[in-house]
């Protein structure tokens, strides 16, 4: 019996030491590029399997009026600091135009009033943030498919990119990946700030500063250090989905600035960060490799999966 405690103490000590070593090892592994790429195969599998399970027409659940959340939590950018945007907002978006271009036969511009005259779709859907919370809202807007049909896609067009008005602030790292629906922090920065140091590297602590981040600053420098604005991309499956709309109304009222006025994307069946707010321009592209860090979106450039169905 007397042998037992010492053996037990030995085991406890050994397992504590092993646990600490394993934990440190896991963090190191998680920072290694090859291992990160290995882990990402899990997210590739998510896309592959979910695309098999969902048809192009499978609808996200829609809810009743009674289910609408009394408060639809705004996340990410809640008030774009950009001067141009502020001017538009001041004029109640009378001078706003949505630009549709890229790999299309007939690029066009539409004002908000013109958008409101087009056939609309209204849907009450649930918004799921990557952080874990959900809210239900009622959205009215123009089906993206209608706009794309009007612009006539060229055959090489594969992705639809949403360019947004809000410049993302990179200055202060808050050390947490905790604002991942859309946008960054609320700190105001001068519009058109051409400081390359400001771009990228937010929200994830040291582990983000990997080779990808390095490449980011190189790219930024090469492209003249223009400020990074929020952007997102979806493929044609999601773009032509019947519930994919550009919403100008939320809960029967004009979309508030905090939720993305004057126009935001609703791409149901996806997590919140895909639902770009403050959409200014829709561009059809063959590949998004030349945009930002080439991962297809602002948060994707920070390491989030391009496919956000889970």
């Amino acid at each position, binding site marked *: 019996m007397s042998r037992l405690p010492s053996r037990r103490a030995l085991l406890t000590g050994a397992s504590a030491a092993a646990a600490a070593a394993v934990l440190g090892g896991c*963090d190191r592994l998680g920072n290694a590029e090859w291992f990160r790429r290995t882990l990402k195969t899990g997210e590739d599998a998510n896309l592959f399997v979910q695309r098999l399970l969902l048809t192009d027409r499978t609808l996200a659940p829609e809810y009743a009026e009674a289910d609408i959340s009394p408060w639809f939590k705004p996340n990410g950018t809640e008030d774009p600091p950009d001067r141009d945007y502020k001017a538009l907002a001041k004029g109640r978006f009378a001078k706003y135009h949505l630009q549709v271009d890229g790999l299309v036969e007939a690029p066009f511009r539409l004002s908000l009033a013109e958008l409101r005259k087009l056939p609309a779709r209204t849907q009450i859907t649930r918004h799921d943030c990557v952080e874990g919370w959900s809210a239900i809202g009622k959205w009215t807007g123009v089906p993206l498919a209608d706009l794309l049909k009007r612009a006539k896609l060229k055959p090489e067009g594969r992705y639809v990119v949403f360019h947004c008005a809000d410049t993302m602030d990179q200055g202060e790292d808050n050390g947490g990946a905790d604002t991942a629906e859309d946008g960054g922090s609320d700190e105001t920065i001068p519009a058109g700030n051409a400081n390359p140091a400001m771009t990228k590297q937010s929200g994830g602590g040291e582990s983000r500063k990997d080779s990808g981040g390095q490449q980011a600053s190189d790219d930024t420098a090469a492209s003249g250090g223009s400020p990074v604005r929020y952007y997102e991309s979806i493929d044609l499956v999601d773009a032509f989905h019947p519930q994919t709309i550009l919403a100008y109304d939320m809960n029967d009222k004009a979309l508030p600035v905090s939720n993305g006025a004057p126009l935001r994307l609703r791409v149901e069946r996806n997590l919140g960060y895909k639902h770009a707010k403050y959409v200014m321009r829709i561009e059809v592209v063959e590949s998004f490799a030349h945009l930002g860090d080439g991962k297809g979106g602002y948060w994707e450039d920070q390491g989030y999966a391009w496919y956000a169905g889970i």
Partner: protein
Amino acid sequence: MPRTYLTRSAPDTGEVERRRWMFRHPVVIRVTHWVNAICLLVLLMSGLQIFNAHPALYWGKVSTFDTPLMGMSSTEDDPPKGVTTVIGHSFDTTGYLGSSTGSDGEAADRGFPSWATLPSDQDLTGGRSWHFFFAWAFVLNGLAYLLYGLVSGQLRFRVIPSRDQFRHFGASVWEHLTLRFPQGDEAKRYNVVQKLTYLVVLFVLLPVQVLAGLAMSPAMDAAFPFLLTLFDGRQSARTVHFVVAALLVLFVVVHVALVLLSGFWNNMRGMLTGWFVIERKVEPAPVTGETRA
């Protein structure tokens, strides 16, 4: 016959030999056991990382934010206090939940502390990458185990109690409470408490855990709306996912404790090499019934 496989014994050297070797765990069982152990640990810790991105739980379709079922937060004090609220009751959990010291030695606002999460620093996207990769590994490994278990008959032998075992349910519970485990022939098979526990873990907790996880995916909810009906909404599914994770932790704690108490080296050898020693019952039993030195 699975039974003969499980009781395949080394040559018995006769009456003097009180120990008998038994080949208990075929290689598929051993490999899937350890792969599963790794998967569950990674899924737990990366799951806590994901939870930390919004450390609150709700019931129903949506989040109410102000009135969670359970939530963790930190106060404005210096140093900040960690507060955990469960159904309206608040507890000071400084250092563990809500606020704890990070790897840099600074107090940080975080649900679970850095030693419990993977990666240790706040990193939602990292946590998600670990979680999804190991979720796939867990599911594929689990399917391999189930397929092998069904085809070989191991599963039925291992987890379905026989009628005579059911009759001794009370006695088996008592054996666990008093830490006196079956010996001799009875030790060749899992006892009734063991079998029922594995049965519940395998066919209730783990499937519910997978379904609740899938119910949190907006795309899966579109493909299979019954997931939302099953869990009464996405936020309830998230809560169920958390609670079942806690139950699995409880299972693992008891499992490891019993492995330690019922002969650690023998159990470990069994799960590593397959070979397990059966202590023969000494007859006639001593007055106290104790057979161990």
